[in-house]
């Protein structure tokens, strides 16, 4: 009897203990992962509405780098944050992955001797969810493969619209994300939060727009048509929303999974953003007057017609953080890019044994290429684009130098010597960037798919109607001058009646953008009136907000998620 009583008491205590944790909290934590997702050649096309006169393109094989960091606690609704930087052509690995989002981060004390090693991150976003970092095609660790890779002319033709345009770029990310979810059934239904920085705003916009309106990307309604992608998206919805099997899943349902986006200094309607910024920076209250005073060169809009050239060329200040000298912020990206070329750092940051990643070995990538010319000259001026774009995309040549370092522990000493046109890591791939902006047959043939086009602003405004949105307002960033975002959005008069920037509020870092839609804005979204975007101010932040104010950003995002329905679980 006594023994039976003891067993009963023990079972009771065990049940009581287990009942303290909901089933989700008891779920097994997932292992970290890093490696490559294979993307096969994809046929897609652009059209103006005429079927036969379309621009049919076929992409190259790619191995897209991803790094998955498991959440501190895994529950059934633990969100998956999907991180990416911008450029286009810039890597996420030396960007958001290295800047106070994962468990390890580049330290941000660059002025006191920091910025040169990875440290524990006290504000790791793994406390809020799983993290998935993706390097865009040909950036960071991602690489393309092709036949006749030794032919420079062939490599030149590879950097064109078939591999680089804003829609296909978004399609790449969707493919990687959906294939990642498909290979992790336990995460298949989890909420996904898109986190994009800079040009990543365009990518996030295109991704969400494609996901929410997926059928139109295979039925001829949209300029970009990718039937294989639509089939892949449809298959994902079949798994997540089986009750809609055989029919088009409405966007109102899709946002149950893709209902949140965090945009860090995003390009969204970038032509309008630049126009608004240009106007604002010429006004008497512009920070350029203070910059001029500090630099000892008074700012005169008449004398310096391009405000950003005044900041960078005359005042010698960093456009990404105008209180700092030139190239201050890119120094962090450059440092991260150098550190990640060592296996010890790569393993530390990703949380996996990088030596076990097959796609890194030189023997596995004989058909790989990263750059056109082996010497990789860098132009200081991109022809036919504005000075602002030049400022955005031209970064120091050091970021893309060949990574032949011949030091113990560097990737080459572990994985082997690559062919001259291959690289283990590229922070910003200018060949890819040029392909997006300049040497792009889709643009040459008149398709308005360049990331400056107002179409992305319209797509963003439609997404926002259903997707909860958080946008940073970094006060010191002139590359994406966030203060210009509300007036830029207000230029979409075809969709909006008004845009109100509410600077005050009860939060530590207040700020909201209230959009009032025209009744006829989107006929398929009846009843749409107003939407509010969280738009907190970061007074001390550069373009990379997670670098300069990591605690504040993490706190604000966590609170915003809690308020918008994704609380602590």
């Amino acid at each position, binding site marked *: 009897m006594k023994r039976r009583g003891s067993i009963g008491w023990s079972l009771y205590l065990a049940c009581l203990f287990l009942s303290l944790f909901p089933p989700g909290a008891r779920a097994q934590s997932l292992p970290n992962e890093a490696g490559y997702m294979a993307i096969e050649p994809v*046929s897609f*096309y652009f059209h*103006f*509405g*005429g*079927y*036969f*006169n*379309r*621009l*049919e*393109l*076929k992409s190259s094989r790619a191995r897209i780098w991803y790094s998955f960091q498991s959440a501190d606690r895994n529950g059934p609704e633990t969100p998956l944050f999907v991180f990416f930087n911008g450029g286009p052509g810039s890597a996420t690995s030396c960007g958001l992955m290295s800047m106070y989002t994962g468990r390890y981060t580049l330290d941000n004390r660059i002025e006191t001797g920091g910025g040169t090693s990875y440290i524990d991150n006290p504000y790791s976003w793994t406390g809020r969810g799983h993290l998935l970092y993706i390097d865009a095609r040909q950036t960071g660790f991602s690489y393309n493969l092709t036949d006749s890779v030794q032919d420079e*002319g062939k490599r*030149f*033709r590879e950097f*064109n*619209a078939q591999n680089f345009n804003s829609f296909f770029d978004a399609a790449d990310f969707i493919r990687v994300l959906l294939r990642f979810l498909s290979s992790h059934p336990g995460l298949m239904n989890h909420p996904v939060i898109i986190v994009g920085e800079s040009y990543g705003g365009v990518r996030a916009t295109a991704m969400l727009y494609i996901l929410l309106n997926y059928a139109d990307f295979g039925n001829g309604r949209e300029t970009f048509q990718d039937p294989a992608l639509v089939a892949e998206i449809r298959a994902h919805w079949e798994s997540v929303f089986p009750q809609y099997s055989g029919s088009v899943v409405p966007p109102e349902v899709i946002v149950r999974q893709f209902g949140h986006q965090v945009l860090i200094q995003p390009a969204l309607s970038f032509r309008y953003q630049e126009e608004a910024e240009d106007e604002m920076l010429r006004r008497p209250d512009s920070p350029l007057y203070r910059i001029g005073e500090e630099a000892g060169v008074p700012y005169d809009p008449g004398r310096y017609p391009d405000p950003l050239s005044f900041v960078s060329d005359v005042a010698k200040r960093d456009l990404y953080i105008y209180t700092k000298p030139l190239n201050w912020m890119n120094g962090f990206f450059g440092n991260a890019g150098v550190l990640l070329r060592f296996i010890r750092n790569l393993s530390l940051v990703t949380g996996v044994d990088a030596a076990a990643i097959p796609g890194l070995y030189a023997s596995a990538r004989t058909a790989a290429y990263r750059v056109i010319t082996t010497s990789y000259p860098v132009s200081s001026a991109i*022809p*036919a684009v504005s000075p602002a774009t030049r400022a955005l995309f031209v970064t120091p040549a050091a970021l893309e130098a060949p990574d032949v370092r011949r030091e113990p522990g560097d990737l080459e000493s572990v994985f082997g010597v690559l062919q001259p046109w291959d690289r283990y890591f590229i922070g910003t791939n200018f060949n890819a960037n040029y392909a997006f902006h300049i*040497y792009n*047959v889709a643009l*040459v*043939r*008149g398709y*308005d798919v360049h990331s400056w086009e107002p179409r992305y602003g319209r797509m963003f405004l439609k997404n926002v109607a259903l997707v909860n949105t958080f946008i940073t307002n970094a006060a010191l960033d002139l590359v994406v001058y966030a203060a210009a975002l509300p007036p830029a959005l207000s230029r979409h008069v075809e969709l909006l009646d008004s845009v109100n920037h509410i600077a005050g509020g009860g939060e530590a870092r207040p700020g909201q953008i209230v959009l009032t839609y025209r009744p006829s804005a989107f006929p398929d979204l009846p009843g749409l009136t107003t939407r509010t975007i969280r738009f907190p101010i970061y007074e001390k932040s550069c373009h990379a907000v997670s670098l300069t104010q990591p605690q504040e950003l993490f706190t604000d995002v966590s609170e915003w998620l809690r308020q918008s329905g994704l609380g602590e679980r």
Partner: protein
Amino acid sequence: MTTGKRRLLSPMLMIVVPFVCLWLALPEALLAVDNEKAGGRGRFRLDLYGGLSLLNPGDMNQIVDYDTSVREFTYDAYFDYLRANGMILSWSEDGDGAGRKIRHAFPFGIRVRYALLDFFALSVGFEFLRRGPNDSLHVQYTRRETAAETYLETLDTSPYRLETRAYWPSVGIHFFKRFGKALDAEAFAAGGPLFAECSYESHRTYVWTIQGQGYAWETFKSEDHLAEDGSGIGISLEVGGRLSLPVRRGIDVFLESGYAYQMVKSLSGEGSEIKGETEKTWEGKWRVKSETMTTPWGTRILRFPTNYETGGTGTGDFRLDLSGFRIRIGASLGF
């Protein structure tokens, strides 16, 4: 086209064979007309001829208009827009990108006549008509992007070909009268089924080259191939006149002229498209469709014929109209 030809030959035989049988079965009394009544040149005559048909298959020729309009809209109008907005410095065009339409054809045929009276004859005949202008088109656009860089865009289309073929078994009636010693003048009418085919083929190569100081990079190249076929059965009616003159015993030469109404109102066939590495084939009914091309520099609504079922909207009927005036010369053998 193999399928289309098979499709036509079978009904043609079905039509021709009964004609021949009917003719062979005509009562002897009806055929009892002596040579004098037949103009002194024999009751039976075999006509062999060739000639020229003036025609304008408008729906089919729209393909040329459509291709030309698309090129002018997506190149010329686009460059005008870029130039007007200061996005390029200048542009120019060299070459001719317009393909030829079908305006005429060269029919040839055979006809057997039997004179029932000295002013009247019946005939059965078979005519074949084909026209397929085969073009090789070249256009080069030069646009100066910046002071330092020029884009060359070349469009080579070869072959560019519209083709129509028609087979026409007919029965006819002929009223003739002799003037002077030898010259016969005649009025005739003929009719029968019209078996017609049409096809379109274009193979286009696009090359974009960037030229700068000391370099010329072939940046992008693509090849497209489009072929569409159609066949159908319609009706043919012809009225005309003829002058014939004997050149030696039993042999006349003649000159005919007339107007033929030749219309096929329903055609269907195969189609295929190769764009880069993407291939597609289909089979469908020809229709005239419209599509709205919406671009940053404007909107244009274009009509185009195709047998691709799912392309375009606002479908309308496609008619292969081979009607027109025609003139023939030939030889007629009496026996």
